[in-house]
């Protein structure tokens, strides 16, 4: 056991004073000298045979002290934290230290700890949220989307070109009689969209027909074109017209999509899924609403180190997303001339709120003794294994190897706390159509 003393300072800061016995100090010095003697080369001495006094003179007494101090603190600090049951959320700063060989070593480490929250109310709030109505129309909408995804585009003979048709054509573009080979294309393939600037004049063309027309290049997007402000002559020969055909809505279609016996079974499944999603979304909004009220009602200081690490988390996530688009935060800061600290500060408000939410949720879990049992964990793993198409044992091994167990347990606990809050607060649902969700919500 170490001799420790804890002193609470202002703003979630704590000073931990630790005393290390002289024998341990001497052992640390001896270990340092022995390692230094083996690694340092001094002319006139064999490695490992350098006397202590020569070593100290070579390395410098201050540097020896600094290194031994660091080693001792690194060794003793975690032990002291464990014994005092503190939860640091920041790195420590060494404020006092009196290291000397042969003497007990006393040091004072100052760091931030998780704030101890007082009494706060987290029950009996009311949250009024919108919940999507799932009806025949919602099911039909999804079926329509699925049909579109399974549509087949096939050539249509003797068709005349209409909006939304796919077509292939030979296009010849000329300016003042000179054909531009870059703009011309023998096997062009396009979809004719509404108000298509280049191909609108082709509406109504039949396969094999040739049509000539003129287009003036004058839009803002074309400002950099060499033909800006000029008129181009188009000659289009239509080679083929294709149209998507939707699959027929019958039992066969349902069977193609999976393990459905009939169209009715498919519709039932879609309805169930939609109901589940609507319930989850509404509960999520309710949960957010309750959290908002708890945060509003109970204010406390959040340790700066936790805010900073939440900002780090936000920025890392943002950077990962930006990298997918081929840019980075560094590039953005360089190009915009913004200071990195200024950029970080823009996340402060969100980070404080997120940290506060996390601390409150955790405190509720502690007060209600909400824990994740091994059975809960096993059940979750079995569920996930089924989803990922893996064996339970394989998933368990993967999670243990990648330290993922803690993450799974954390998310399970958060889920349980969420369920607890939903159960112990009043949730009122306003049933609305999908299109009206979020309309009329005052402070979502």
């Amino acid at each position, binding site marked *: 056991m170490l001799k420790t003393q804890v002193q609470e300072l202002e703003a979630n800061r704590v000073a931990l004073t630790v005393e290390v016995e002289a024998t341990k100090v001497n052992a640390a010095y001896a270990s340092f000298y022995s390692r230094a003697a083996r690694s340092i080369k001094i002319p*006139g*001495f*064999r490695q490992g045979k350098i006397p202590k*006094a*020569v070593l*100290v*003179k070579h390395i410098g007494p201050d540097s020896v002290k600094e290194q031994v101090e660091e080693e001792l603190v690194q060794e003793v600090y975690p032990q002291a934290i464990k014994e005092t049951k503190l939860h640091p959320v920041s790195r420590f700063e060494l404020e006092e230290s009196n290291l000397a060989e042969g003497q007990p070593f006393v040091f004072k480490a100052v760091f931030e700890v998780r704030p101890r929250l007082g009494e706060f109310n987290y029950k009996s709030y009311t949250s009024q949220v919108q919940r999507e109505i799932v009806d025949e129309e919602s099911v039909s909408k999804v079926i329509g989307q699925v049909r579109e995804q399974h549509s087949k585009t096939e050539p249509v003979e003797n068709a005349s070109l209409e909006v939304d048709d796919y077509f292939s054509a030979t296009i010849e573009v000329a300016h003042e009689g000179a054909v531009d080979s870059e703009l011309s294309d023998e096997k062009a393939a396009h979809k004719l969209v509404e108000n298509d600037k280049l191909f609108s004049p082709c509406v109504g063309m039949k396969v094999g027909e040739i049509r000539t027309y003129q287009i003036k290049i004058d839009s803002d997007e074309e400002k950099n074109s060499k033909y800006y402000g000029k008129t181009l002559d188009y000659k289009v020969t239509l080679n083929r017209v294709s149209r998507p055909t939707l699959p027929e809505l019958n039992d066969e279609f349902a069977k193609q999509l999976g393990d459905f016996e009939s169209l009715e079974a498919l519709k039932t499944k879609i309805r169930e899924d939609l109901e589940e999603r609507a319930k989850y979304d509404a509960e999520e909004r309710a949960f957010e609403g309750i959290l908002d009220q708890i945060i509003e009602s109970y204010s406390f200081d959040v340790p700066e180190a936790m805010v900073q690490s939440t900002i780090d988390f936000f920025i890392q996530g943002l950077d990962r997303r930006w990298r997918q688009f081929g840019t980075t935060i560094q590039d953005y800061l360089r190009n915009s001339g913004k200071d990195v600290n200024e950029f970080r500060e823009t996340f402060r408000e969100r980070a404080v709120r997120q940290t506060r939410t996390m601390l409150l949720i955790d405190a509720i879990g502690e007060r209600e003794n909400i824990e994740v049992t091994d059975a809960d964990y096993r059940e979750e793993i079995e569920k996930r294994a089924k989803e990922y198409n893996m064996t339970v044992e394989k998933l368990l091994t993967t999670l243990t190897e990648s330290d993922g167990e803690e993450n799974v347990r954390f998310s399970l606990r958060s889920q349980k706390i969420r369920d607890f809050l939903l159960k112990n607060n009043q949730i009122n649902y306003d049933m609305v159509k999908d299109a009206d969700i979020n309309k009329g919500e005052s402070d979502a």
Partner: protein
Amino acid sequence: MKAPQDIVIQPIVSEKSYDRMGEGIYQFKVAKSANKSQIKDAIEVLFKVTVNKVNTLNVVRKPKRRGVFHGYTSTWKKAIVTLKEGDSIPFFEGIA
């Protein structure tokens, strides 16, 4: 006549010399032309101590080879100086 700084070139700190520093015996690299009494005087002037005995020896050259080039190290003179009991040289303090 040579100045003391030109006679005593550098102290020698090695495993062997270190072992005897506690007995007041120190080793120096000295000018090849210096004799024992010059070394004694130089040490006494430079370090403000009394010298009881000076032993000297010429360190022989050693053959060295770097690739195809053959050569030798320089020869030099070593002085082993015994001080009066109780005297010590501050330069070595903290080491011996």
